């Protein structure tokens, strides 16, 4: 097992990884920007290295300082968390070259999966169902139009290098395509450094159902059930749950088999997620693969009892998975709400600031993953996630009631600080959501 791991991230996920390391007896090194010098991960880690000023491109994305910190502190391995460098093959390569084990898939697998058009092609080759679309980037608007005419509208244009729900643009009808194409290409070029786009049929009403997979160095690949992440705003997930109200045992087995088949076909190692869309007829379609631990991983942890980050550390250290597929049983129901420092009454504009009051909920079946505390300041420089509230209960209705109870207890106050807590509670009491019928059009259709 590793003796020392450097966590190349910040906030709640850095804390999550530090906790898993401590439980495994691994020493930890936290890297931080100037803005996070007083943060909880820095306090809890055994060592900390100041790696740069607040801007991410000069700190959490600045490979030389991070690698140097790992080498000089004598770390054996690096955990990239999610976001930042977690899907950067260049970073994974440099780590390997410097003798550091990167906790995640190999650079080659990362490259394959990170290009979404390539991922589509590979999964099609592995026999997974795909929505009609291209498996190569489309050259220009004319080519896109020709393909879209063939598939039928609406279609969606997606950046091959996109991620986190960004670089996606829906084209409702033919004459909008050239314009959306140019804008999306320019946007992708600017944000991801790669303007290549692929095209897919767009399902207006579908459920976003993703399957958690784990694979070890021996190639043993298992799935840990699905998470339903249909409640999204601008393709950003807000609420996640497991099991999905729309998935029964038979469908779960088919989704799981497809996910495992896909992961195995590319030699995937570690924790990963296969994203699918479930359409109104109950058919599922491969969307993309996320080659990292995800924000909503606690939902799966609570229904399966498996510590996904600990499994990541073990697998990276060359150990086999601690569970077999037959050991994976989904018990009860878990639900997660991402509490962001945003003002839901003002178009979800970021509303960070100093936290004068911060009292998270507790009690039965209630887990809060957060790096924040009273007196801390949410820096404006990074994402707006303040805390993840995750609850477990024996069945779905109880979990939703428990989540509402937990959110009602959560006190967050500070000058100028607004959170999405009240908004989440409105989602939870919405009859369509309560019934388990929320699809990807839920927010715009039922919550305006």
């Amino acid at each position, binding site marked *: 097992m590793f003796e020392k791991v450097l966590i190349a991230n910040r906030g709640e996920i850095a804390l999550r990884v530090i906790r898993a390391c401590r439980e495994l007896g691994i020493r930890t090194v936290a890297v931080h920007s*100037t803005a996070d010098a007083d943060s909880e991960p820095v306090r809890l880690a055994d060592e900390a*290295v*100041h*790696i*740069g*000023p607040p801007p991410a491109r000069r*700190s959490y994305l600045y490979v*030389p*300082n*991070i*690698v*140097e*910190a790992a*080498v*000089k*502190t004598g770390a054996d391995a690096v955990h990239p968390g999610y976001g930042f460098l977690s899907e950067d093959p260049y970073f994974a390569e440099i780590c390997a070259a*410097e003798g550091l084990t990167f906790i995640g898939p190999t650079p080659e697998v990362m490259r394959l999966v990170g290009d979404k058009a390539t991922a589509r092609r590979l999964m099609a080759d592995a026999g997974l169902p795909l929505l009609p679309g291209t498996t190569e980037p489309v050259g220009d608007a004319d080519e896109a139009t020709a393909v879209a005419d063939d598939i039928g509208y609406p279609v969606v244009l997606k950046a091959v290098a996109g991620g986190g729900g960004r670089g996606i643009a829906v084209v409702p009808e033919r004459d909008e395509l050239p314009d959306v194409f140019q804008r999306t290409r320019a946007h992708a070029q600017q944000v991801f450094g790669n303007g290549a786009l692929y095209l897919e049929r767009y399902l207006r009403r579908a459920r976003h159902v993703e399957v958690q997979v784990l694979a070890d160095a021996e190639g043993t690949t298992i799935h840990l059930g699905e998470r339903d992440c249909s409640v999204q705003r601008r393709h950003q997930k807000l609420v996640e749950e497991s099991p999905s109200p729309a998935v029964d045992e038979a469908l779960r087995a088919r989704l799981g088999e497809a996910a495992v088949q896909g992961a195995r076909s590319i030699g995937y190692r570690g924790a990963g997620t296969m994203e699918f869309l479930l359409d109104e007829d109950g058919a599922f379609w491969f969307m993309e693969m996320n080659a990292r631990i995800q924000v909503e991983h606690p939902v799966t942890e609570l229904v399966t009892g498996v510590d996904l980050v600990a499994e990541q550390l073990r697998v990276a250290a060359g150990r086999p998975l601690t569970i077999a597929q037959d050991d994976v049983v989904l018990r009860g129901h878990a639900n997660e709400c991402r509490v962001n420092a945003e003002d839901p009454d003002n178009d979800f504009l970021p509303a960070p600031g100093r936290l004068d009051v911060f009292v998270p909920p507790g009690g039965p079946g209630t887990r809060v993953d957060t790096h924040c505390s009273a007196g801390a300041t949410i820096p404006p420089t990074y994402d707006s996630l303040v805390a993840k509230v995750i609850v477990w209960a024996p069945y779905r209705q109880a979990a939703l009631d428990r989540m509402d109870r937990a959110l009602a207890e959560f006190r967050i106050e500070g000058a100028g600080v607004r959170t999405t807590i009240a908004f989440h509670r409105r989602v939870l009491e919405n009859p369509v959501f309560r019934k388990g019928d929320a699809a990807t059009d839920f927010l715009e259709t039922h919550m305006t």
Partner: protein
Amino acid sequence: MTDQQPERADVVAALREEATELVARIPGPLHKLSVAAGDSVVTVEWAEPDAAPPATNGTAPAQETPDDDDRVAVTAPLVGTFYRAPEPGAHPFVEIGATVDEEQTVGIVEAMKLMNPVTAPRRGTVAAIHVHDGEMVEFGQPLLELAPEPADA
């Protein structure tokens, strides 16, 4: 006894000189000073300075006099290993008291086998050196302090 008095005066002078020199060299603010003459005692006590790595190979960090608002800290622009000289065995780029020009190299931070020069942000004299040769440094860590150059008469 009269011929002891000049001797004694010498001892006192010597003690005073010794005490003054010691006080000038301590790395932290003075707490207590005692001098005696019979059986010659000099005691100096000072407070723990803010950054005081133990001296290893003779290149100990030098003192700093506190409360000097005109001082400028030269900080590490990246994470790496700080070196005081261009290569092992060579003379350090600067010592305490050296006058440096703006952009003059005062040290190196090595990272990933690349040597990155650390340069003076402005003209001045080196008033303090906080980091040992070969020590790992973080981004923003103070390496040296420059005092303004004494004004020309």
